[in-house]
């Protein structure tokens, strides 16, 4: 069985983002970019499943401009066997790739590669959409296990037991393979790429495909009107004692 993992290139989680003064978006120039942390967890899970003998190959895929190759290279250094880059730089309509478009592209790649499992992060930390996994599962008519904190595969029965983080606690589902899984933070602790593996990754194959080759038409149905900074709160007050705190909560804020 093959496992496909989608990875996204985003602004590094430790970077404090700046909204552009013309309100068109967030400053991306000279900003450190990394693999979305949830995607790292997705890739780690795929690698562990392969190492446990349940899968033969892990394929990392990414969509976007030429720099996505860097993210894929990181994935290969972590241990993915090969990678596919859907290059969107040739298409002007793809500058704003919506989750629906990404889901359609992923479906095409799944149709071509026929993996038994597609693993994604539950959301990307840039747009915080939390949509793509659910959408590609719907398009493929595959079952979905979103927000997974534990995944156990049964090779014989071709079933995945997925524990999910839901509002009320933990929900456990059985999913027939092939299936889509999206990862929550507590699923695993991703590994670091070691230097020998980084060297090895340089010789691994990253296949480049275009939107035209995949035959997926991007129809933009969302327009970003503006990006602004959130309203600022008033500066806080430092209180020196518990009494003062209780007094302020009672008599000023009127909350207790």
């Amino acid at each position, binding site marked *: 069985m093959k496992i496909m993992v989608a990875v996204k290139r985003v602004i590094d989680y430790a970077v404090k983002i700046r909204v552009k003064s013309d309100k068109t978006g967030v400053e991306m120039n000279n900003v450190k970019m990394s693999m979305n942390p949830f995607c790292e967890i997705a890739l780690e899970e795929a690698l562990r499943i392969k190492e446990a003998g349940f899968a033969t190959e892990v394929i990392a895929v990414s969509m976007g401009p030429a720099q996505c190759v860097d993210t894929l290279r990181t994935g290969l250094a972590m241990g993915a066997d090969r990678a596919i880059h859907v290059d969107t730089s040739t298409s002007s309509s793809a500058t704003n790739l919506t989750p629906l478009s990404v889901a359609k592209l992923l479906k095409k790649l799944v149709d071509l590669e026929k993996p038994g499992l597609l693993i994604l992060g539950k959301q990307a930390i840039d747009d915080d959409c939390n949509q793509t996994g659910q959408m590609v599962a*719907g398009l493929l008519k595959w079952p*979905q296990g*979103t927000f997974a904190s534990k995944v156990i595969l049964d090779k014989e029965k071709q079933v995945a037991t997925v524990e999910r983080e839901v509002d009320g606690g933990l929900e456990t589902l059985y999913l027939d393979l092939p299936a889509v899984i999206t990862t929550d933070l507590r699923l695993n602790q991703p590994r670091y790429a070691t230097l020998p593996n980084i060297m090895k990754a340089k010789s691994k194959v990253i296949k480049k495909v275009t939107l035209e080759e995949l035959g997926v038409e991007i129809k933009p149905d969302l*327009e970003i009107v503006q990006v602004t900074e959130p309203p600022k709160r008033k500066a806080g007050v430092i209180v020196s004692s518990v009494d003062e705190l209780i007094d302020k909560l009672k008599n000023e804020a009127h*909350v207790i």
Partner: protein
Amino acid sequence: VSTLILGEHEGGQLKQSSLCAVTAARAISDDNSITMLLAGSGPSLQQAASHAASIHPSMSQVFVADSDKLSHPLAEPWAELVHLVQQKGGYSHIIAASSSFGKNILPRAAALLDVSPITDVIEISGPQLFVRPIYAGNALSTVRYTGVDPCLLTIRSTSFPLPHISSDSKSEAAPVSQVDLSTFSEDILDKSRFLKLTSQDTERPDLGSARVVVTGGRGLRSAENFKLMEKLAEKLSAAVGATRAAVDAGFVPNELQVGQTGKIVAPELYMAFGVSGAIQHLAGMRDSKTLVYTLKEGVADYGLVADLMLVVYCFCSLNKLSQKLALKI
């Protein structure tokens, strides 16, 4: 303008977050015709349906999908159901709350309808114009939906207050009707099966809708120390929250996590103990009305958002605070 709300219910009652979706539907347009869709099986579903029908005068209809296939809120049957109901009803908008229920189901339904959903909406500026946070709430994005109907949204219930419930609501209950499931596509439904839901029984109010929330972070150092939060919460009739670090360290279960990837809360009073103020955590509570933060020394990121800061070692302040509150209540 007509809106279908995907309703969530528990124990024969409509959940509060689904009621907030009614407020959101009314923000789209005043003359919005609102239909609530509920699914499940058995008497608790029928109970929830009559609850939903009489909850607000703007509710024009309640649809009930009663089937064993829908007894658990799984994404696969629900997405098919939404597709089916949309084909018959031709709604202009479909709304669900940004709960784990809505986040799981709505994007899948959107894919079946071939439209882009807009998730985590915090403000509705027009029928096609929405504001949603990005980058853990460090920026706000205004998006215009330019696609075909329906426009699918999940809304943050903390941003849309509960609608005013009328007192003589019984006389104006909306009609309840069954969804015709004879054409319900069932081919993929057996591929996903519910096994169990494990949850911690707690007497504390629900984290998502509590008026007061007390939260602990890794600074509390142990599950034992975290019990102080429980005590304080009891005194204040508050819900208990936690940071990701506290959950990861095993102090408390995952459903208490507040933050970018956990629950989003906006209580009247939010008190944080032993919390570093990571942006991922701030994303989950920055809309709280009054924010109290205890810090050891120096000011962490909280300095940017906190209203009241108490500089003390956290166990000490926690102990003192709960004792003092105990005396005064």
